[in-house]
């Protein structure tokens, strides 16, 4: 599985390949996009700092900006396939002379690495911000920052470890629409969207409510169920990828 070609496939999936639909819209110069991003970032930091200065900012609430992550992760997997059709590059992708499992696994791993990259970046930025708060505002201590990071590690590692199945489900949905069993797609959309909601129930098991309470957070150790949940998630992810590879090989309807 881990040949040089597979490594190149993953690298290809990890990089931004662009999107013709976005390309064909009236183009906004890249500098403007950077400016928009900076404005939003400054507004978010400014708002948080305003509340921090009034001693009203419960730092753990910052992690709530990641609450949409399970859905984002799903659509990352879905988009990795959808873009091949949207860009009309699927003919090139499908005729790469590698096993369908490798093609699918490369998309999956490329998407998972993107999740890792996004989460690590977010964790570093948020942690640095809270560290600065803890050094500059007397209300916050180093302990606040340490507990903030501990909660972040727990919640974000939950997303990272559960995302293999979520990405695999997204990829399956992307492929399913181009197979002979596409009539199943509406049902599976409902099932997957509802199942994603369950991710939030898992936080009650893994991170107790107290972690997000107005009081200072406490380090909470992972419950015993977590390894079992992760193991099931990974086994199911592999099964979903296998099914997707089968559909790609035997049931495509182009």
């Amino acid at each position, binding site marked *: 599985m881990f040949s040089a*070609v597979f490594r*190149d*496939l993953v690298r*290809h999936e990890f*990089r*931004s*390949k*662009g*999107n*013709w639909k976005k*390309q064909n819209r009236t183009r906004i110069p890249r500098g403007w996009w950077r400016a928009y991003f900076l404005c939003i970032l400054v507004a978010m930091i400014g708002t948080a700092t305003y509340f921090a200065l009034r001693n009203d900012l419960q730092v753990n609430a910052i992690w709530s900006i990641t609450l949409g992550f399970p859905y984002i992760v799903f659509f990352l997997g879905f988009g990795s396939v959808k873009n091949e059709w949207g*860009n*009309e*590059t*699927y*003919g*090139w992708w*499908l*005729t*790469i*002379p*590698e*096993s*369908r499992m490798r093609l699918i696994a490369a998309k999956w791993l490329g998407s998972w690495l993107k999740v890792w990259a996004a989460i690590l970046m977010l964790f570093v930025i948020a942690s640095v911000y809270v560290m600065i708060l803890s050094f500059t505002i007397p209300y916050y201590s180093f302990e606040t920052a340490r507990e903030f990071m501990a909660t972040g590690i727990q919640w974000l590692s939950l997303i990272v470890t559960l995302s293999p199945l979520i990405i695999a489900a997204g990829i399956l949905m992307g492929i399913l629409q181009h197979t002979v069993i596409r009539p199943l797609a509406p049902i599976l959309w409902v099932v997957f969207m509802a199942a994603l909601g369950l991710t939030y129930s898992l936080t009650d098991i893994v991170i107790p409510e107290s972690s997000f309470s107005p009081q200072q957070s406490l380090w909470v150790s992972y419950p015993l169920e977590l390894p079992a949940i992760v193991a099931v998630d990974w086994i199911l992810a592999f099964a979903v990828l296998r099914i997707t590879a089968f559909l790609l*090989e*035997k049931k*495509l*309807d*182009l």
Partner: protein
Amino acid sequence: MIPNIVECHQVTKRYGQKIALDRLELAIPAGRITGILGPNGCGKSTLFRTLTGMVRPDEGRVEVLGKTPGWRTNQSIAYLPDRARWYPNHTARQALEWGNSFLPGFSMERAIQLADEMEIDLDMRVGGMSKGQEARIMLILCLARDVDLVVLDEPFTGIDVMSREAIVASLIDFLEESEQSILISTHDIQEVEGLFDYTVMLKEGRAIWSGNSEDLRAEYGSLRNVFRKLYAKEWND
């Protein structure tokens, strides 16, 4: 006897009510430049997708290079998909590197030479190119491969006249040197009339004529006349 590079026996492919290939019987000899001709919707692209293993026939048997088509046989097939595009964020060089990474038999040296001949700036982003320039890059990805079979599905569709001429000129140069078997589908015969030495005429998913292009011309005159006679209804539409 020359072996066949493609064989189809009673191949049927349906899309719902529509029959794309209808009990197709076909044998294409190896080492020829074969034109797969016919109007839009006659089954050309479905045939090529079947040959590259992307779709499976509902009935019948297909062989390409003596084997059932699948991802493994694509190691020996260079395929230009119908209405294909390339990734807009790639530069031309990245597109060629993609070919070098994933396409067996791909020669980077040959690809760069072809890009030079076709006046492609390797550092230009595909997103900023004309359709003709993009089409040339995709053609290079096929022509720079040393494989047994080259399959080009409608390589001239949606391309301006200047680029068409450039592509046809490159194809002629390539075909003069090449010993590969080549299948080219088109519904637009004007530019390519002289390219083919073997011709297959498809209509409604069936091969209504196949054989040496010279025999076809002897029987009907120019390929334009062939189209006019064999596809009288489509021609008048």
